[in-house]
């Protein structure tokens, strides 16, 4: 171990500083945590540089030997995500400089979530991952019901119980794995799993663990917790932004990580590819039905995560790295959209897209930020979404793939045509009311917006810089692609005018329809049985 970057600092610093500085007055506490976040951002970038151009960093906590120690690993998958997480938290701390919704307990829980997330990304030990997910889960449950208004306590309770059931599945799976192999270290598992006498014995723990991870990454039909948590009315914009931007990616990251661990014995890529596609379609269909702007964004996260999972499991390198790039892109534009949505809701005092008009005129910086986010997410030319979607599309073969990608793009564009209505028109609230000008809010929104644009203009180089593989993104700007985008936009606008606005009653019925806890648990069990059956059937 030649390097000297202590990885455990990355995990322990946020929660440690948060605990030690808790006695400070609120304003000072915020400042201390902001400085800590900037420091940790620097540390994570140093880690990333070391990993990207040096070797991966492995650290054994407390100096125990390999396979016994709890291990922290920074490699080419985890280091970019750690940088993304720290950028996000630093950004949200700057964003909320003048906010009045952050008291000290809130800030402490927020940095605890940061620690848990960085820990999940860096951990190389499956039990450690379990513990850190549970830690993050508790922090999130309190954060989303923080103001305790409307139905937020119910949302948080449902979130907590569903995730706890999934974690019980994971614990049983880890126990099973430990019984078979005798190790919990991910690398040790990779080494030992192919040596088993009976590889079929791994099927049951695989299904148990992957069911939990699928719920964490909100795959169909296990996503019903996500809109409640991410679109919770009582959660401030920064919480929604972090949840949608980074936290759900932890699930996707674990899907990649653990699939790689099990890949010598079990191959379920086809299962997850189909599931990703279904998730994506169902996600945007539900997004179209929503009225609440935060819920539109939350269901949209489901759709985009489906797209990412589909890309990761296509079995092509271009699509894989495209999907990895889409993780970063989605974090940027969805984080941006949630941040600006929080400001818009606060300013207009409403959450319904029908009551908000003229954001662009009333709050230019927020409006431009939102517009950049929308252009990014719909895959408009020159914006980052177009690059990663282009890469994912390259991995798709045949007519079906083209149609699938077009369908997802159309759905995305359609739901954001609806969302973008809030930008235009005459401001729906009195303009003479003194506006709260907040340079920090505007600044962070614009920086994220510019990042969306930069990620598109420099798409190929960015992928090469962050992950290594060299792919040309020139095709994303070809005349054909731009024509397709314009055509998609035209079809989406036409569909919105002619169809979506006419079926309000039907959409209201979808909106009202909710599954209760028992039904959600049944879905979880069915998912487990389906995954078990599939792996049994495939691994002959």
């Amino acid at each position, binding site marked *: 171990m030649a390097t000297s970057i202590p990885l455990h600092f990355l995990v322990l610093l946020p929660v440690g500083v948060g605990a030690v500085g808790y006695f400070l007055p609120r304003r000072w506490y915020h400042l201390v945590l902001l400085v800590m976040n900037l420091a940790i951002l620097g540390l994570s970038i140093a880690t990333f540089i070391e990993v990207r151009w040096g070797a991966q960093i492995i650290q054994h906590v407390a100096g125990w030997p390999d396979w016994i120690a709890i291990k922290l690993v920074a490699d080419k998958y985890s280091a970019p995500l750690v940088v993304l997480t720290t950028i996000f938290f630093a950004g949200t701390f700057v964003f909320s400089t003048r906010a009045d919704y952050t008291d000290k307990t809130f800030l402490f829980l927020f940095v605890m979530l940061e620690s848990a997330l960085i820990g999940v990304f860096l951990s190389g030990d499956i039990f450690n991952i379990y513990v850190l997910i549970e830690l993050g889960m508790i922090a999130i449950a309190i954060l989303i019901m923080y103001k305790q208004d409307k139905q937020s306590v*119910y949302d*948080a309770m449902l979130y907590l119980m569903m995730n*706890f*059931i999934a974690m019980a599945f994971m614990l*049983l799976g880890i126990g099973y794995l430990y019984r078979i192999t005798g190790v919990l270290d991910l690398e040790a598992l990779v080494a030992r799993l192919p040596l088993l006498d009976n590889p079929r014995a791994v099927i049951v723990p695989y299904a148990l663990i992957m069911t939990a991870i699928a719920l964490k990454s909100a795959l169909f039909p296990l996503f019903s917790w996500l809109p409640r948590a991410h679109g919770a009315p009582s959660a401030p914009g920064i919480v929604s932004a972090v949840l949608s931007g980074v936290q759900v990616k932890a699930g996707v990251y674990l899907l990649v990580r653990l699939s790689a661990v099990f890949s010598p014995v079990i191959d379920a890529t086809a299962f997850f590819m189909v599931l990703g596609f279904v998730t994506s379609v169902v996600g945007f269909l539900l997004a179209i039905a929503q009225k609440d702007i935060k819920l539109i964004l939350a269901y949209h996260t489901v759709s985009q995560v489906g797209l990412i999972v589909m890309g990761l499991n296509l079995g092509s390198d271009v699509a894989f790295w495209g999907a990895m790039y889409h993780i970063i892109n989605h974090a940027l534009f969805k984080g941006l959209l949630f941040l600006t949505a929080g400001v818009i809701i606060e300013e207009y005092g409403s959450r319904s897209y029908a009551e908000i008009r003229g954001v662009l005129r009333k709050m230019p910086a927020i409006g431009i930020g939102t517009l950049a986010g929308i252009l990014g997410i719909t895959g408009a030319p020159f914006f980052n979404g177009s690059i990663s979607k282009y890469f994912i599309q390259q991995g798709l073969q045949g007519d079906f793939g083209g149609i699938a990608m077009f369908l997802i793009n159309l759905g995305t564009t359609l739901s954001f045509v609806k969302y973008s209505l809030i930008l235009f028109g005459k401001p729906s609230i009195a303009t003479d009311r003194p506006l709260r000008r907040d340079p920090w809010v505007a600044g962070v929104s614009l920086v994220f917006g510019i990042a969306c644009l930069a990620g598109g203009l420099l798409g190929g180089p960015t992928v090469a810089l962050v992950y290594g593989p060299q792919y040309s993104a020139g095709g994303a700007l070809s005349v054909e692609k731009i024509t397709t985008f314009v055509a998609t936009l035209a079809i989406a606008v036409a569909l919105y005018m002619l169809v979506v606005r006419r079926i309000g009653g039907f959409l209201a019925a979808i909106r009202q329809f909710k599954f209760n806890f028992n039904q959600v*648990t049944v879905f979880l069990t069915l998912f487990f049985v389906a995954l078990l059956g599939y792996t049994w059937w495939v691994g002959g």
Partner: protein
Amino acid sequence: MAFVAQLQIADLTIAIFFLGLYGAMTQRNIIKTIISVGIMDIGAISFFMLANHEPGAKPPVIPTPPEIMADPVPQALMITAIVIGVSVIAMCLAMYMRVAYRYGTADWNILIRRLEK
């Protein structure tokens, strides 16, 4: 009956886990579902504790010779899992109290209908 004779305690813990899952799927009472989830967690923890257990193994405390010690790893890990389980259950119950005061029901189905108003 040969099947029954071969059963071990570890199989029983798996039965407990799925019993808890059954409860979470079927019970409409919120308290009962919280208890069911707790039972699932206990089932998983007991299963983990029994991993690699051999008959006659002694607790891993210093005077015991290492040859007859039980595997210490599950015991060390499951303390963490038990603590997490207790705190999550406690949080669920606290949240349930809020919900019960607010909506006046302990039934998931009635609760979901009252939410919209």
